[in-house]
């Protein structure tokens, strides 16, 4: 029992560091691809990418770009206007080593979050750390001309201009292998980013809340609960009666801490992502790495407590004809992996879709106001955006609660399957 707890704790720490890192070490073939990518980048430079420092005025509001910028992770917290909350930056380049500093070293004050310095080929573009793809770029601290964009394959990528020459930038390595526009590049970002900071904040908040409730129980053990204790007790009893007991059955109490922690953690992350200003505004459950880590924890917990009947139901389902068993077993094995996968995607998709819709509605102000030209249009946009966003935010509150509940409920259901008694 003790060993299992320690083992589970170790797995939890592993999953947590995965969330924090959100990357993977490149394998041998990926290293080849990385080198290839750098070679191609050098080729692209020879194809005369032109970019300069003339300030570009956006004539049309680019909703997708703004939305993805706001729901993405960043290395500095943008609070208001030119006010940033700087965060430590820790970058690792395989073969080169670590670069650790505060994000203020990039000197991005009064520059829309674009750094004025390149340190070891790292630059900051709108609060996110990128790296100059060209290996020939000087690796000491240099002052760059400006941060701009360059058109390539019909898409615009960030680039910097240094001594009149254009240098395209590459973003950090992402674990999804490039599916959502990432891939393996020359560096990995292990910084305390917006997301990591927000997760630590949520951790501290939940710790404080549960400590207060525990002290309340210790101070007056047999009295009616009041205040915060009342609220938390209501929720925990709800999880116990509506989620744990019906779905897990007799041994529900063993999993109550896990289910309660899951529910409160996901709910807190969802809600703190809904607050549009610092210290909220960190989009955690809308980040697939975070939901992947949660689904992975569920996957390990469910399969580590699986008993004989669980595995028998998967590999050799009792009570069906032998011919069907041969079809059913591969399906069940697939289901073993698809269930946590859908857990991850469901939470991620719901929260991300909500955020994108909210940001798009705010973008209506700029669309109606034709990017600052039409004041009447902008005013109408403000009223429309206000009404639509009030409605959407109410729905998003509901979605935050429902998604936390559904994740917990499905986890309880899978745990119930794993600890099922023989009933045939």
């Amino acid at each position: 029992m003790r060993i299992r707890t320690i083992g589970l704790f170790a797995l939890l720490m592993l999953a947590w560091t995965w969330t924090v890192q959100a990357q993977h070490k490149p394998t041998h073939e990926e290293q080849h691809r990385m080198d290839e990518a750098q070679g191609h980048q050098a080729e692209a430079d020879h194809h005369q990418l032109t970019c300069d420092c003339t300030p570009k005025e956006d004539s049309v509001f680019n909703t997708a770009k703004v939305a993805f910028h706001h729901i993405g992770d960043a290395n500095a917290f943008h609070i208001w206007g030119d006010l940033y909350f700087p965060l430590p930056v820790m970058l690792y380049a395989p073969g080169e080593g670590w670069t650790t500093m505060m994000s203020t070293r990039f000197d991005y004050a009064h520059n829309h979050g674009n750094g004025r310095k390149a340190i070891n080929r790292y630059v900051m573009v709108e609060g996110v750390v990128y790296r100059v793809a060209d290996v020939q770029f000087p690796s000491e601290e240099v002052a760059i001309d400006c941060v701009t964009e360059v058109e390539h394959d019909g898409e615009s990528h960030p680039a910097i201009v240094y001594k009149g020459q254009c240098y395209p930038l590459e973003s950090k390595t992402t674990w999804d292998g490039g599916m959502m526009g990432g891939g393996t590049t020359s560096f990995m970002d292990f910084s305390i980013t917006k997301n990591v900071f927000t997760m630590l904040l949520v951790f501290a908040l939940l710790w404080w809340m549960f400590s207060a409730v525990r002290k309340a129980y210790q101070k007056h053990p047999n009295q009616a609960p009041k205040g915060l204790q009342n609220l938390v007790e209501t929720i925990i009893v709800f999880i116990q009666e509506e989620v744990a007991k019906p779905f897990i059955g007799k041994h529900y109490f063993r999993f109550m801490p896990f289910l309660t922690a899951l529910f409160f953690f996901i709910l807190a992350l969802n809600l703190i992502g809904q607050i549009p200003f610092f210290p909220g505004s960190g989009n955690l459950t809308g980040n697939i790495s975070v939901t992947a880590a949660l689904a992975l924890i569920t996957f390990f917990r469910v399969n580590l407590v699986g008993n004989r009947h669980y595995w028998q139901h998967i590999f050799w389902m009792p009570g069906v004809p032998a011919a069907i068993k041969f079809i059913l077993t591969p399906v069940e094995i697939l289901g073993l992996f698809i269930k946590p996968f859908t857990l991850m995607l469901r939470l991620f998709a719901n929260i991300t879709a909500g955020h994108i819709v909210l940001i798009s509605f705010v973008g209506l102000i700029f669309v109606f106001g034709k990017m600052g030209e039409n004041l009447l249009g902008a005013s109408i946009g403000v009223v429309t955006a206000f009404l639509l966003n009030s409605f959407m935010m109410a729905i998003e509150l509901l979605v935050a609660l429902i998604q936390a509940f559904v994740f917990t409920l499905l986890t309880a259901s899978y745990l119930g399957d794993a600890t099922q008694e023989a009933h045939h």
Partner: protein
Amino acid sequence: MTGSITALGLGLAVLGAGVGIGQIGGRAMDAIARQPEAVGPIRANMILTAALIEGVALIAVVLGFLKG
């Protein structure tokens, strides 16, 4: 005709979700009409099933964001 096939696919996914959740809502209304005192459990199960169906539809939406 301009636009992307992705947008068409997303519309179809939303159509599927609409039909599914509409069915759940309709059956839930019938059940509440038959037995008004069971409103609580019916409402809870309706929201749960709707969330599961919406999950699948939104998975389709997210897969539309994939590049290449």
